[in-house]
């Protein structure tokens, strides 16, 4: 059993598990941090951005994969745990010869589609007149200004995929529900479990009859909107692969939400605008819910909230229809009937307005001071670029970063000097290390496998021993481009036995509670299922060629020698030997058993747990005599 680690990013994992003749890809996250090397893509040409020294204007996205590790066309299935972890899907399904199936829950697919749609839309609406790629050449890259010249593996950076590719990739997805058992080629069974992190987010159980591997990715124990995490089903795993912990282990999400609200209110009360660069789904639902409760108390009822994204409308509406994927509280609202999320009421009362883009209705409705939620959190493309340009000059305004995926300082770099206030309130509801250690104590896996980042404290806080996984035995760690042999061997395989064959067995009790029977059968293997069938009867000799062929087909049914069982008590054996006239017997203990030395006869009898050897020089008579004495101690059947 091997694990191929294709991504070094712990929260955007991409691993391939080879298990019982299946090749399973676990997630395919897209690490977009390399976009920070590019200049923002403004909707309108920005002279300021084009004239920035030391920056070059390029478009593109990055996908870091280490495809030489494994041929991705051999991947049988891809299991997706949440919509953030499927953003690289088109690159795999469309460009690698992949011909398998992708499994994901419905909300994951729908919201993942929205994220991809938004990404494609953001990139495609500012097309480049020409596409440059020569700079990826190592010799030319060296000439580029820093930090571009220092960027690693630039050659693996890819252009953003297109909508056709997205559609084609999504068409390969098969929808699954929580706890649904999916047979993969009869060899293994995979099951998604609720992971509590996002709408439809899942952890996966991959199990055979005798082995169980749990894949935990992006889980949360906090009570936000999704269904709570299913921990019980993770128990008794042989291996637990643990990825997607919180990226900001030192920030408590509750405190951050409070911080978010305070800073938002402070800015708006002073007549400033608030910009929240965010993804169109996920934490934004919680933020809106929190603001729904807060705005009245903070006297902000008159402040408009704008949500601008090509998929804003779909995102807000989708969230309301996935009732079965929501936490209990929200589910019960549906029966009242009430919309599960309060943003419906914000929209109804015109406090929250959503627009597909800056153009059109938004320009006419736009009123300041206001709060704008828009993408992309990297500040490199999307409508957020425009607002940064628009509001960056005034110290009254504030940009509040809530998504932890990008370094906010790097994201802000091309906008410097910036008068607007910047607040960093990363909200990451995924498991922190305290929760992980509780979880591991609870589910007690035999082995834990995790990215190497989790096995040591963060470099900046090397004294924080609490910010690492602490479990027994210590977790196995992996890094990008490593192949890990998972630390357990498959020892058993389940074989079915046909009823008529079973009927024919005559078990013999050799110890109380243990019976043995010999069986002669044909092992039939198909679709990773093994069945013992009765051997075909020897065909009646019909003469000629036919008989010959028949005899070829039928396995040789030799007369079976009886099987022996039992053990040889050395002392009694020696006594028996003495009775039979052997003298000068010496017994030596060895690591595996005993050696009985008949010095006169120059003969050795080696007695081990599962074998007995009689070594004598060409004296067949003696050997047979001794063999018979040995056999007296054993049972035959």
């Amino acid at each position, binding site marked *: 059993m091997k694990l191929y680690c294709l991504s070094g990013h712990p929260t955007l994992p991409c691993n391939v598990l080879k298990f019982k003749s299946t090749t399973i890809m676990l997630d395919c996250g897209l690490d977009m941090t390399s976009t920070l090397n590019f200049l923002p893509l403004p909707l309108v040409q920005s002279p300021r951005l084009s004239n920035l020294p030391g920056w070059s204007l390029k478009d593109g996205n990055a996908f870091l994969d280490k495809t030489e590790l494994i041929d991705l066309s051999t991947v049988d299935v891809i299991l997706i745990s949440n919509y953030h972890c499927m953003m690289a899907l088109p690159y795999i399904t469309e460009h690698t010869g992949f011909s398998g199936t992708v499994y994901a829950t419905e909300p994951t697919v729908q919201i993942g589609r929205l994220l991809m749609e938004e990404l494609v839309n953001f990139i495609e609406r500012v097309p480049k007149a020409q596409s440059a790629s020569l700079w990826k050449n190592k010799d030319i890259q060296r000439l580029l200004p820093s930090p571009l010249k220092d960027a690693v593996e630039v050659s693996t950076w890819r252009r953003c995929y297109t909508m056709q590719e997205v559609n084609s990739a999504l068409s390969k997805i098969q929808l699954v529900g929580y706890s649904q058992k999916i047979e993969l080629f009869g060899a293994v069974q995979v099951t998604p479990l609720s992971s509590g992190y996002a709408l439809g987010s899942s952890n996966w159980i991959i199990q055979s009859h005798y082995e169980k591997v749990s894949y935990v990715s992006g889980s949360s124990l906090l009570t936000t909107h999704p269904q709570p995490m299913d921990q019980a089903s993770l128990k008794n795993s042989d291996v637990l692969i643990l990825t997607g912990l919180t990226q900001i282990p*030192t*920030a*408590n999400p509750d*405190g*951050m*939400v*409070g*911080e978010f*609200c*305070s*800073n*938002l*209110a*402070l800015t708006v*009360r*002073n007549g400033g605008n608030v910009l929240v660069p965010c993804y169109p789904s996920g934490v934004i639902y919680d933020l809106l819910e*929190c603001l729904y*409760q*807060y705005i*009245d*108390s*903070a*006297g902000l009822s*008159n402040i408009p909230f704008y949500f601008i994204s090509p998929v804003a409308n779909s995102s807000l509406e989708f969230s309301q229809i996935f009732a079965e994927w929501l936490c209990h509280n929200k589910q019960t609202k549906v029966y009242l009937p009430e919309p599960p999320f309060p943003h419906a009421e914000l929209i109804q009362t015109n406090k929250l307005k959503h627009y597909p883009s800056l153009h059109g209705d938004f320009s006419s409705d736009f009123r300041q001071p206001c709060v704008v939620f828009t993408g992309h959190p990297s500040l490199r493309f999307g409508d957020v670029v425009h607002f940064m340009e628009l509001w960056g000059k005034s110290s009254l305004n504030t940009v509040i970063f809530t998504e932890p995926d990008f370094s906010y300082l790097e994201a802000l770099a091309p906008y410097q000097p910036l008068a607007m206030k910047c607040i960093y*309130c990363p909200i990451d509801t995924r498991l922190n290390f305290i929760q992980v250690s509780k979880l591991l104590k609870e589910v007690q896996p035999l082995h834990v496998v995790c990215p190497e980042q989790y096995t040591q404290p963060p470099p900046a*806080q090397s*004294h*924080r*021993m*609490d910010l690492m996984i602490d479990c027994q035995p210590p977790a196995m760690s992996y890094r990008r481009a490593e192949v890990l042999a998972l630390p357990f061997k498959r020892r058993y395989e389940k074989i079915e036995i046909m009823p008529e064959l079973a009927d024919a067995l005559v078990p013999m009790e050799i110890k109380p509670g243990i019976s043995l029977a010999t069986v002669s059968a044909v092992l039939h293997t198909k679709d990773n299922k093994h069945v013992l069938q009765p051997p075909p009867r020897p065909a009646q000799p019909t003469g000629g060629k036919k008989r010959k062929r028949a005899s070829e087909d039928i396995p040789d049914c030799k007369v079976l020698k009886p099987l022996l069982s039992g053990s040889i008590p050395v002392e009694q054996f020696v006594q028996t030997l003495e009775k039979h006239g052997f003298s000068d017997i010496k017994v030596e203990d060895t690591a595996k058993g005993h050696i009985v030395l008949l010095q006169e006869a120059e003969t050795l009898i080696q007695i081990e747990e599962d074998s007995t050897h009689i070594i004598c020089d060409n004296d067949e008579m003696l050997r047979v005599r001794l063999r018979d004495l040995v056999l007296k101690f054993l049972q035959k059947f």
Partner: protein
Amino acid sequence: MPAGSSGTYHRRLCEGDGSVLPVGRRPVSAPLRVGPQGSRSGLPGTLRVSRGRRPCARPRRTRQVARSGVGPAAAEGRAAGISSLTMDPECSQLLPALCAVLADPRQPMADDTCLEKLLDWFKTITEAGSSLLLLQGNPCLVELLCHMLKPQDLSSRVLAFSLRLTGVLAAQEDCFQYLQQGELLPKLFGEAGPLGGAAWTSPTVRSGWIQGLRSLAQHPSALHFLADCGAVDTIFSLQEDSSLFVASAAGQLLVHILGLSMPGPAGGPPSLQAGDWPACAQKIVGHIEESLRATATPQITQALNVLTTTFGHCHDPWTQVLWVRLSPLVAGLLEKDPVPAAHSLVDLLLSVARSPGLSSSSCGLWETLAQTLSHLSPTQAGPLALGILKLQDCPQALRAQAFAVLLQPLACVLKATAQDPGPSGVLDGIVGDSMTADMLLPSKAACVGLLCRTLAHLELLLPLPQRPCPWPQAPLLGAAVTLLQLCGGSARPTSDAGRHLCALLLGCVRVQRAALDFLGTLSEGTGPRELVTQVFAVLLEYLRSPDSSPTVLKKAFQATFRWLLSSPKTPGCWDLDPHALLFLRDLLPVLQKRLCSPCWEVRDSGLEFLTQMTRHWGGQAGFRHALLASEVPKLTEQLLRDPESYVRASAVTAMGQLSSQGLCVPPAGPEHPGGQQKSLLAELLHILSTDSEGFPRRAVMQVFTQWLRDSHADVAGDTEQFVAGVLQVASQDLDWEVRAQGLELALVFLEQTLGQPRSHCPCAVTPAVAAPVGPLAQALQPLCRVRLFEFAFRALFDCDRPVAQKSCDLLLFLRAKTASSGSLQESRSSPHVASVEAALQRWQAGDQAQPLGDLEPEVVLAVLRSLDLEGLQGALAESSDHVEKSPQSLLQDMLATVGVLGGNEADCY
């Protein structure tokens, strides 16, 4: 002046409506009733519990009492809240019926608090007079006690009551003899009594038995009785009772008996030889010795507890002899590992050390204490060390040892985080081999508990005059700062122990709170500049951190304020020093953010902090400049409209303070579109008249009162209009605290108008200290114009007692003022006066709809003189249930619950 004895107004009222209700006991309802006996809780403004007005309720049995003939005179006798000292005939008449009820198992008492009250009453009677006479005068009592001896299914409560009553009666020797003659005592308390019966299984009965004996054991005869009936052995066994109350009472009874049997101070020092001691004392001391030698910890604990109580309560010479005899045994406990019953041992040693009867130096106590300190674990030794340091006279070496023990955990923290334990070196060498980080850090719970206790102990020690000197201020500051950094995650320890400590304490709210409290207390001392800088840095870190819980944040605000207060001042200038001003510049943005917090507790503590700061430095240029440059005043103004009432109240107080200091910005919130600006006065008046919760309205009244007192610019413009407006709104308020505060405001105005310097107790002012400015009538005119009298008269009949009392005080003060001038012509006969009096009668009857209209000073004075204010004041001083508290009422109540009184005597409702 006694109630109803004079005062034409009241007499006429009684005659007028034909009511038999004694005027002096006009029913008034309590604003807050907390206990079953209707005790009062607090003064106006001290509690945030009651909201709105309680309906005016009459005490239940008022009419009944009047009918049964308890006149004003009887009521006067109980005016001080004391029940009858003797058995009055009415009670004597009721007693047989009550005893019959108690003796009847078919009529169970529903409410056993009645029995407690009854017992209290008997105690009062027996303390004031002869128990024997009481028994002889009321044979039903002896019958009741005898009845207890019959085998029957009696309730355990009544049985316990009887045992306790017997004890109370037998406390007097002659009565004891009387009861002895009838063999009643041995039968009740001996083997023949409940002791051997099924009733003994009830803890109530066992407790009653002990308490009975406790009351009884007051004289030598009682000692003989105890010895004869073998009670002491029973008490020994009761020390192990399953009920903690019984076990504890048994221990105390032993202490009492021991004290009774030993000779008093006059008897001279007793011999060390046990054979010379009274038998009873020998037996008890023998039992204690045996227990101290026992191996079972509970037994040792009992013995130690008995000794602790003994040394704590009795300081006769024999206690020293007792200690000399027992101290080797106590010291022997220290040789066991672990030391058994360590907490009780600590209590005992401290009790002995505090006992003035013992000369500590001679009896080896200091050695024992030193030995104990070194034997106990850090957790157990902490309280002992604190106790030793609190002792007045104690050897310096022992004090040093105790202080070292107390400081150990903090020294350990400093060592684990590899910090210099400070130049003073006080913490040097404390952390020897005995105390390593491992001892401190076995588990999170142990570590947190020990640190919190240590910090609390040191906090207690700091303000004491006998605190250790030199006080290691700098290392302690360092330790508190380090702890806070460890909890907040900003510490960067390099050692393994430090990292482990960090992991244990990270985010621990308990330690954070304790350390912040301690840090605040440390502000009373000084520290090196760099440490003070660290203190401010860590406080700022806590105030800034989004992860600080609201309670931690509140404590951080409190500690910050204390440190700002203690920051060094330039001589002759009360402004903050430059460092503090720099800190303030960082602090104000944090405060701004906290005022916008989604958590109301945080907004509230932020506002309280702002109010405190403004009160202290509002007049100082540096502070004013920093504050006005920030958004804080504007945000505070917006919080006047917060949805949480507590926050609104705090915002009102803060705005009042800001405005007093001229730090207010004109409000221009979203509530006032079109740039229309409303003055703060109008805004506060709006809150006073419309806010649905009491707290903001109370806060507004306090601000207004303060403004009036300080002649705030907004008020000084047209004071009369201001006062008239506020009083009018306040008189309509449903919250009694608002109305009471209205009277406070009225009083301030009255004093300002009449030119009387403020006295704390207006009714105690001797009249004619300062003559009013100008003729009286003229002086009273403004009061009439603001309708102060209508407000005060209305308050006089307020259904909430504190309001009525306050109004009464105010009017008495005014009357005293005006009496001295005497220049005003009496106009009692004027028809206007009559109509006012008629209106007041209606008001008292509950119909307050009719206004008084414009009052002339002459009319007011006439009405003032005709009112029986003193009588009213006396009546109001009594609690509203003083009638119900009478013993007769109690007896009637008890009988009524079992229906003996019959229909004719049933409750008037």
